[in-house]
């Protein structure tokens, strides 16, 4: 096993490389990759030898090496402080990426409730995102309602949409549920695309106004950055609280074993409904912010690929783990941006990265404890 796995991995990636750079480069790549993997393997084997002396050093700082870095409380404060001051040091481009990451973090945390906690595969999550965005867009452009007054409406509407999808969908399980949710996502997109009189079809709705707080209008990227930081914090806090409560435990019980869950008194149908609605609730929030930030919405932003991307974030980061999902969302927004330099190989490199990750951490980056998705 110790030799076979690295060998298969390097051959696989060398084959990926072959059409672009020719045979010679592919062989070179194969050897390099094989050597690196073998090196990593041997390092991994001696990991335990290094662990004790390292722990002794860290003991001086009262830092436990065995608790993962992301769980240490100091790191959290440092990270939070860093996030607060970022806008003073960076270019608009970086802020733009940060804002996008924040929107996706909210979306991924919402989908995590459905997929990670309750174990229900939802391939049409983008539909709720779209409903949230269009609700704010329409309320704002047709009736002139401001962001803060429209937000509760659009979140309420997406929650109701979540309920409505869940009612027929929950008679199904696994693959069938996935197909129905996929269909729902497409239906919503097609309605938005074709209901010209209301949504202006593929042209989209433009001229959406930005949020106003006490006669202070949001116009700079920095403002949106802080607004999103605020909402991300709220999302993390609430999903964490709910996860640790009676409701979250019921969801996980349903994911682990639905029949056993029902015989200890959990109303499985109702709780699956709640999961769908609660997940949709956050998509509604993300959608409204997205519409307010872009000041423009069109059906193009809500394609099936978007659903897949959000699902990737959840599974990549570690389905069911809140910090994992945040990392997953951040990485999947960041990676394509970083790889902009190598235009041609961008998607290739991204795909290869995902494959490597799934080989070495099949439960996601931070998904050690929680269950992987079971269909």
């Amino acid at each position, binding site marked *: 096993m110790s030799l076979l796995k690295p060998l298969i991995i390097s051959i696989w990636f060398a084959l990926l490389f072959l059409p672009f750079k020719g045979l010679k480069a592919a062989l070179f790549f194969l050897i390099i990759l094989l050597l690196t993997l073998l090196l990593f393997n041997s390092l991994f084997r001696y990991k335990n030898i290094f662990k004790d002396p390292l722990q002794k050093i860290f003991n001086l700082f009262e830092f436990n090496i065995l608790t993962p870095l992301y769980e240490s409380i100091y790191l959290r404060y440092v990270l939070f402080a860093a996030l607060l001051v970022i806008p003073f040091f960076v270019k608009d481009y970086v802020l733009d990426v940060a804002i996008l990451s924040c929107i996706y973090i909210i979306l991924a945390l919402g989908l995590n409730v459905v997929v990670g906690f309750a174990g229900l595969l939802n391939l049409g999550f983008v539909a709720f995102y779209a409903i949230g965005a269009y609700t704010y867009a329409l309320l704002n452009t047709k009736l002139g309602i401001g962001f803060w007054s429209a937000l509760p409406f659009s979140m309420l509407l997406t929650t109701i949409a979540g309920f409505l999808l869940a009612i027929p969908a929950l008679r199904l399980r696994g693959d069938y549920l996935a197909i129905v949710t996929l269909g729902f996502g497409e239906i919503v997109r097609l309605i938005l695309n074709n209901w010209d009189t209301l949504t202006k079809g593929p042209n989209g709705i433009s001229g959406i106004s930005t949020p106003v707080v006490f006669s202070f209008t949001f116009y700079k990227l920095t403002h949106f950055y802080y607004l999103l930081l605020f909402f991300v914090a709220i999302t993390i806090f609430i999903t964490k*609280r*709910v996860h640790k409560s*009676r409701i979250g435990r019921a969801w996980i019980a349903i994911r*682990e074993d639905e029949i*056993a869950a*029902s015989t*200890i*008194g959990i109303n499985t149908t109702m709780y699956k409904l709640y999961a769908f609605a609660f997940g949709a609730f956050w998509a509604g929030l993300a959608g409204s912010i997205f519409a307010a930030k872009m000041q423009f919405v069109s059906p193009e932003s809500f394609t099936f690929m978007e659903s897949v991307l959000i699902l990737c974030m959840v599974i990549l980061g570690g389905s069911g783990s809140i910090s994992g999902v945040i990392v997953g969302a951040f990485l999947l927004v960041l990676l394509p941006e970083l790889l902009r330099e190598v235009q041609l190989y961008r998607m290739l490199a991204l795909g290869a990265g995902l494959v490597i990750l799934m080989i070495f951490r099949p439960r996601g980056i931070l998904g050690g404890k929680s269950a992987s998705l079971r269909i």
Partner: protein
Amino acid sequence: MHFGGIKAIEDLDMRVKENQIMSIIGPNGAGKTTIFNCITGLTRPVKGSIFFSDVNIVNLQPHEIARLGIARTFQNIRLFKEMSVIDNIIVAQHCRTSSGIIDAVLILRKFRREERIIREKAMEYLEFVGLYDFANTMSGSLPYGAQRKLEIARALASEPSLILLDEPTAGMNPQETVQVMELIEKIKKLGKTVLLIEHDMKVVMGISEWIVVMDHGVKIAEGIPEDIKNNKLVIEAYLGKEY
């Protein structure tokens, strides 16, 4: 408590007396587990009725039946494997708690008190079945015998008055089997009623106060252990092979 004729299994009429340990025995495929599934609402009988303290529970959902006070274990262990041992017990107190989403988000006093109480209770249940030291282990990584005990503890945690155990000693060594027998006696002392499916005759004869024998979906005999041991029909159908 009594169960009316469950036609799907074929005319079955049985009663479970309160605070008694009663066993259902019979060869494989006799319909024992089906009886459990009907009682807990997982399958719905075509005809007939099941009364639990004068309430007809035949058309109720599994979670409603659990709320009324019936809990069960499964023949093939059905634990929440990726949850810790203590979380398995905590989640089982679901229908005895009531904090909602608002309580949890705002961390209201009610929520904190309820969380503290169910955690303490969960530790008590773990102590009761002898798994106190495993509280923070992942339940999927427990040894087999301990998983069976945890499932019993989980059933107890939903505070039932009737507890259904589906082959609680299957696959256990003699020592563990004795522990489970003692555990069942202890459950009875709590004032609960135990209905048991079991193949191990030592267990059945040792702790049952009343035995129902099933074969091919029909009740062929019932009585106290001594009578069952000497019943000709029973020996023919089932015990004859083992005794």
